[in-house]
């Protein structure tokens, strides 16, 4: 079965609306409206109850001093100012940005290279099956497995470093210098397949004629990669970059399970901070303020990316 996505020719022709042809246009219009709301009702209810109301409440709570039970006290923007000055918030922000710098560019470049390599190779489906597998697995289970792989004394990584290269590996997860790079490696491993699939889809969209023209002009594979593939893949690269940054700013499971934010808060991330401030300290106002700051950072990063994208994203038509 082949279903076309939106904007395909099948969806384009739109004859006059049928109910209107039948004369009693008012009542049909009303009944169409009723049907419409009937159909969206369950999801609309969910949207209001579990997204809009909590979102508005979040802004209200972020301006209050509140432990979730006792008296509420309105404090204006104090929580926001307090968070920006808070030592732990700053540590969390620095760690999160560091993690993003470590994981996002590496993840994107590797995913693009693998996709380009896979695109014209035999056995693409089997490779894709394996490369995509980590993407769908449970972060907690994967974290448990990697805790062992990263173990300083009995982990596979250090055992083979010793055996093959004679190097004594670091204490990956218990050394504050290595903990964030370790978590970033795990994330690159987990995320590679998803980005790769998006890049493969992007590659499918590039017309063969560009390459044929380039071959006639005598351009080599390398030149084709630099001058055709990478520029024409830029809309996908743009989308993948935005999604990766949004995801990396929300990193939590891995550091919660593997290191509890340690050692010495070296893997304490923004979401970890939000979690701790709410459910260990019971300062809901401060926690929500930190969450709103996270939201605004993600939003402004996305908008900044969109603005910058005009300079480097090329659309084919």
């Amino acid at each position, binding site marked *: 079965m082949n279903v076309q996505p939106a904007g395909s020719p099948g969806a384009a022709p739109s004859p006059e609306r049928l109910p209107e042809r039948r004369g009693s246009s008012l009542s049909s219009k009303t009944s169409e409206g009723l049907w419409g709301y009937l159909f969206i009702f369950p999801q609309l209810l969910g949207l209001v109850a579990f997204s809009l109301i*909590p979102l508005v409440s979040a802004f209200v709570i972020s301006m209050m001093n509140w432990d*979730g039970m006792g008296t509420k006290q309105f404090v204006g923007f104090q929580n926001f100012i307090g968070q920006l000055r808070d030592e732990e918030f700053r540590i969390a922000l620095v760690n999160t940005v560091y993690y993003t710098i470590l994981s996002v560019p590496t993840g994107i470049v590797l995913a693009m290279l693998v996709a380009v390599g896979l695109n014209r190779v035999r056995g693409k489906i089997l490779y894709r099956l394996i490369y995509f597998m980590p993407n769908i697995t449970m972060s*907690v289970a994967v974290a448990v497995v990697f805790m062992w792989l990263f173990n300083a004394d009995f982990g596979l990584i250090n055992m083979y470093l010793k055996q093959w290269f004679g190097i004594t590996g670091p204490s990956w997860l218990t050394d504050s210098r290595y903990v964030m790079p370790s978590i970033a490696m795990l994330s690159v491993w987990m995320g590679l397949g998803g980005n790769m699939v998006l890049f493969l889809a992007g590659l499918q969209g590039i017309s063969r004629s560009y390459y044929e023209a380039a071959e006639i002009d005598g351009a080599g594979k390398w030149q084709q990669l630099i001058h055709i593939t990478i520029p024409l893949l830029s809309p996908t690269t743009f989308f993948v970059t935005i999604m990766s940054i949004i995801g990396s700013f929300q990193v939590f499971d891995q550091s919660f399970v593997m290191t509890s934010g340690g050692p010495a808060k070296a893997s304490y991330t923004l979401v970890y901070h939000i979690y701790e401030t709410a459910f260990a300290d019971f300062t809901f106002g401060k926690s929500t303020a930190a969450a709103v700051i996270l939201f605004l950072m993600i939003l402004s990063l996305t908008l900044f990316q969109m603005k910058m994208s005009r300079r480097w994203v090329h659309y084919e038509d």
Partner: protein
Amino acid sequence: MPYRGLRASTVLLHTVLIIGACIMALPFVWMVLSSLKDLSQVFVVPPKWIPDPFVWSNYKDSLTALPFGRAYLNSFYINVIVVVSQLVTCSMAAYAFAKISFPFREPLFILFLATMMVPGQVTIIPLYLIMKNIGWLDTHLAIIVPSALLNAFGVFLLRQFFRGIPKEMEEAAIVDGANRWTIYARIMLPLIKPALSALGIFTFLGMWNNFFNPLIFLSSTDKFTVPMMLNLYRGMYSTDWTLMMAGASIALIPVLIVYIIGQKYIIEGVTLSGIKG
């Protein structure tokens, strides 16, 4: 493409891709093999991959050390309810957004899309407080109801598919006097089965793997879902690597089965989510 014979560059490319594939697969292989080892084999240098002897009882031990069976049951029934409800509610909303003209359709749809931008951490504390007020904390309702009634991505995904169906499919039925519900249930739903499969699989994987929401809402061990139980396990038996690997394998097996069966739909779905721009 005609077969051109093995060229050096092709061999090199395959070599690199195979090394990459090994790196992607090794943690899983190591997990499953280690789950069958005796604990004494764990500390052998250089590492031994093949268990000797095979200790099948690790699985029995890990299932009985903590109420893993209970967590499994919890995760399963939560997943079934959420997947079924989402398929119904998302497809209903998606059909309306694609095919019915009603007042404020476009602004409402944009509102749905906009909520996808809000990270879950922003709404989690108000949600926690709402659940607390209505007495749903530490119940599965706190996990089930919000997921069953809201998946903006699902609405978006299915709407894309409904929009691809030509209008003529509906027109004949409308002339025959069929109402909207009949058209939706009898004509439209069967046409988007591949999309429904994709959404069902996504929802299943997302719910099965989700750690953050159960962590916030559930506190009694007998209510725990699989990832929470595994995390508890990690805290209690952190040195018993073989049992932990058995636990991790038990947690991952349903995911891997769903993945192998449904990988075509998963890849289609991921691909479609990328061309929204």
